[in-house]
């Protein structure tokens, strides 16, 4: 099997399932982690991720199909999405796609799902469709605070990894998000985001 990506959390291998290309996602033991803690984290996230990959499709968010799950080895075999992560696309393209990403996140939140790891590498563009990946930190949650944490994270990523296009990408994201969740909820979440930012260390509290 060919290693496709050595991720932060899991390793991805190219494999076959029945007659189609597939990805084996396996959460490897971290030597530095206490074994008990390690196995708890791996097991919980493997189960959570496979559940979420199925759940989000029920409200129209594109995500890889789950073929097989083994909590014992902390591995999931899923459909391969042969597109490119949004992170690697041209800046103008990222700005444009930010609106769609905002809509996708809005759809997740509207249906009570917090993604928990919203980065530009967890969205893959394949044939004009954006697929959402990496649900290991996702949670079923309707709490506005959790949704605000999601937004703050993607804002932080735009601010750090895509600093040059931050403001236009962020505006587009928010437009897309507002279109799905409505302006009342949008305003509420935005307020919470600045509240969370204000809690940050040495933030300028006005």
């Amino acid at each position, binding site marked *: 099997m060919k290693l496709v990506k050595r991720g*932060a959390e899991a390793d991805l291998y190219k494999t076959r399932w029945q007659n189609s290309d597939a990805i084996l996602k396996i959460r490897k033991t*971290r030597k530095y982690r*206490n074994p*008990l803690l390690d196995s708890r984290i791996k097991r919980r996230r493997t189960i959570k991720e496979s559940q979420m990959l199925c759940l989000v499709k029920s409200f129209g968010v594109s995500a890889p199909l789950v073929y097989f799950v083994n909590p014992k080895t902390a591995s999931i075999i899923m459909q391969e999405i042969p597109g490119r992560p949004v992170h690697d696309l041209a800046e103008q393209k990222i700005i444009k796609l930010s609106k769609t990403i905002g809509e996708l996140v809005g759809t997740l939140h509207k249906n009570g799902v917090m993604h928990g790891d919203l*980065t530009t590498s967890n969205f893959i563009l394949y044939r004009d469709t954006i697929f959402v990946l990496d649900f290991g930190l996702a949670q079923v949650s309707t709490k506005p605070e959790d949704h605000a944490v999601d937004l703050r994270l993607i804002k932080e990523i735009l601010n*750090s990894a895509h*600093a*040059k296009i931050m403001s236009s990408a962020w505006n587009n994201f928010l437009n897309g998000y507002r279109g799905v969740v409505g302006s009342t909820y949008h305003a509420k979440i935005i307020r919470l985001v600045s509240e969370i930012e204000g809690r940050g260390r040495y933030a300028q509290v006005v």
Partner: protein
Amino acid sequence: MDNVLGLGIESTAHTFSCAVIEKNKKDGRILSDIRHIYRPADGQGIHPREASRHHVEHSSTVLSECIREAGITIHDIDIVSYAAGPGLGPCLRIGAIVARSLSSFYNIPIYPVNHAIGHIELGKLLTGATNPMVLLVSGGHTMLLAFLNYQWRVFGETLDITLGQLLDQFGRSMGFASPCGQNIEELARTSSNYVPLPYSVKGNDVSFSGLLSATKSVAARSKADACYSLQETAFAMTSEVVERALSFTQKRELMIVGGVAANRRLSEMLRDVCRRHGSKFFAVPLQYAGDCGSQICWTGLLESQVKPGVSLENTFVTQSWRLDSVRIDY
């Protein structure tokens, strides 16, 4: 002018320190670094007023010892820099007053320096890291940073208390003297019984406050188990976000700076993370992990390459001064 001699003054929290560095192009040589550290009573934290009194009392001896050890006189100094924030207001003011007095009396250009940037710049000087992902872990900071487009950008940080505060507040609840990191590390080594504790990673951010409360209740049963489990959980969380950031940014270097960099268990875990990602691991030498005048001095010297000193009216101190708001032109 090839050789520049700088004096740096640090007084953001418990440490009052002066250092002299000689800068020659990209090289810096620390000629002296003298510190005096305020120690609160066992089980208690820093009292800002008491700490600032401590700084007042020791400022002149630390300064004169620093000059003497460097083998120079005050007239040899080309620039003076001081930590202008972030930190405790009363403490910051002492360093600033000393710097202003020297600057106006001897007519030396003066530079306000961001304390956190100081940790990073001194780390780069001492480790030789060129373009690292930086993990800044101390009593005041828990941040994961990378340099992009004239600024240090935050990839992840704590949403509530810092790693240093977590260790100190937990240690103090058991009656240790601040800073408690070393005591906790020693006690942790006597146990290998992991008690499950809340593990809170939110994307690239971490949250430690729930962990602190939960660990206190474990300590009621076994202090050693509590220390061990606290370190394992908190450091695993930190290592995980480091892994995330390394994999996201593909940086080939990781540098750890700040007081908690002195913890060997944390370094060991991060070294393992780096091995997995093929990145080089740099830890700031133990002696310079904590707050010191050198970090301020070196950053001031770097600033002086591109800017004249500021006028005395602009020698501010700011308790809240985020390092991602500082533009870096050198």
